[in-house]
């Protein structure tokens, strides 16, 4: 039967050997860290756009606080969106690990078996983890969900951005339909855009925790893999 992970689970005892596999190519790693910076910028500025900082004193002419915050938000939004397009392109031309988080094999029984194995592992029912060169099935689902949320954030974000640019702008022409799809009042889109931000924050919390935990408990590299590209198996 086809298998996605492999049992490197039970310890081989003392005197372990370290093997490494090249997993994440440079564009994937670049995209990952650019997206990290974008998400931090977008979340902080986005929060402040909905709940602005305390008022600044002085003449309006000499202040541009909200303007800079919004500028940072829009710029980071553009970078995130361009990054997403680049990442989707790389899924087509990159190695098969680049496709893992876009094409989840939900039609495959073996995949589901391993999915539930991973769920049991996270619930402490399984004693030893499996090892994966790429993502484990639960991680794969989480990444794919994040991608779709990010796509939604780009669509809703550019729709709201288009409102400010005006009805003749490219953003309004291309994404204005999103507002109509949400009933026509962009207040609804604002709310969903903000819920999207919170769902990404939730994702980041779980993502960072799971990566560090797997790094320690599965005896395989996670964090450094996204920097060097190599996954190390420490036994």
């Amino acid at each position, binding site marked *: 039967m086809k298998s996605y992970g492999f049992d490197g689970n039970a310890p081989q005892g003392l005197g372990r050997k370290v093997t490494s596999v090249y997993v994440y190519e440079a564009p994937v790693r670049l995209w990952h860290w650019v997206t990290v910076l974008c998400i931090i910028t977008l979340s902080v500025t986005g929060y402040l756009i909905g709940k602005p900082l305390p008022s600044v004193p002085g003449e309006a002419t000499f202040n541009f606080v909200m303007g800079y915050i919004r500028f940072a938000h829009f710029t980071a939004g553009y970078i995130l969106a361009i990054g997403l397009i680049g990442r989707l392109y790389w899924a087509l031309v990159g190695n098969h690990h680049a496709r893992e988080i876009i094409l989840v094999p939900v039609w495959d029984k073996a995949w589901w078996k391993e999915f539930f194995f991973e769920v049991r592992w996270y619930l402490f029912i399984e004693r030893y983890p499996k090892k994966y060169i790429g993502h484990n099935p639960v991680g794969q689902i989480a990444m794919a969900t994040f991608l779709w949320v990010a796509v939604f954030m780009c669509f809703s974000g550019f729709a709201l951005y288009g409102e400010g640019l005006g*009805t003749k702008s490219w953003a309004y022409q291309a994404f204005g339909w999103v507002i109509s799809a949400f009933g026509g009042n962009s*207040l609804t889109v604002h709310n969903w855009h903000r819920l999207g931000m919170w769902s990404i924050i939730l994702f980041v919390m779980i993502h960072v925790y799971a990566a560090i935990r797997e790094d320690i*408990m599965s005896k395989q590299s996670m964090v450094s893999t996204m920097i060097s590209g190599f996954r190390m198996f420490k036994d």
Partner: protein
Amino acid sequence: METFYQAMRRQGVTRRSFLKFCSLTATSLGLGSAFVPRIAYALETKPRVPVIWLHGLECTCCTESFIRSAHPLAKDAILSLISLDYDDTIMAAAGHQAEAILDDLIKNHKGNYIVAVEGNPPLNEDGMYCFPGGEPFVEKLKRVSADAKALIAWGSCASWGCVQAAKPNPTRATPVHQVILDKPVIKVPGCPPIPEVMAAVITYMVTFDKIPELDRQGRPKMFYGQRIHDKCYRRPHFDAGQFVENWDDDGARKGYCLYKMGCKGPTTYNACSTVRWNDGVSFPIQSGHGCIGCSEEGFWDKGSFYDRVTSIPQFGVEANADKIGFTVAGTAGAAIAAHAAVSAIKSTMLKKQDLQPLDAAAPAQNKDKNEEKV
């Protein structure tokens, strides 16, 4: 058939006033001076287009607004004197006489009149919640609209449903475009709409005999193409980051941006910040209160008028995106901490067992594991 110009002359409007009206119309439509002779020519040569004004489930604030139009020529010349042939609220005739006028209009101007609808038809109980002239309003609307050239949906009631369609909408009040599906419906939302906007839209339609350019949601672009926020005179304070934090603070006195007080200007398409109200005297933000977004779809059901991040009714309990977000993130943080603690305990326990010499515990474990796999 009588032209507009002839009808105006008959009513005692001078040529001079007529030309003034043409320039005023061109200006209010944003068309520039080149259009003045074209409007005059259209009015002199085209047969006048009658307007039928219907009242459904509504509060008459649209009519109240309209009759206070600051440009009397637009209101009087085009509507009171010339084109407004039926309006059961302000016409002199009443009862059977009024209804006879309506029947004659439909018969004589078949396919050539404009129906302006104020309010909307309630559909529950076969439309019994609104029953003007011995007929459910929904029936009347369908009957009159059948031979109309186009419909104008006056105000938020006709455009979106407004307060009578707010949850739970007991009478099932339904906006006009969801009832009349085979005619163009021009939405002029607002509660009420700006009188000058109403006058200009109807003038455009009867003079040029065509529908103004509409946006995605069927509103005339010339008046609903920008948000209140885009042309707000307090916008520089928004960009500077200067907000009213309380109704009685220094920022309120200095006229800072009302964003934090829940102003809906950034999500509301209307002309209030440019055309303003009462002959251009003021508009809500200028009076120190945020926009409540009255010309937007479902504005009654979008949470408080005084919150920027508004509560989301779908969640049952009173909550907005940030409350939900902080709760979920906090819960997740606690869960992660707990999970990490259990993981650490498990890890320590395993390490104690696993680091024993190979011939002791580890092979036995491997054996068990392999048997399970088989």
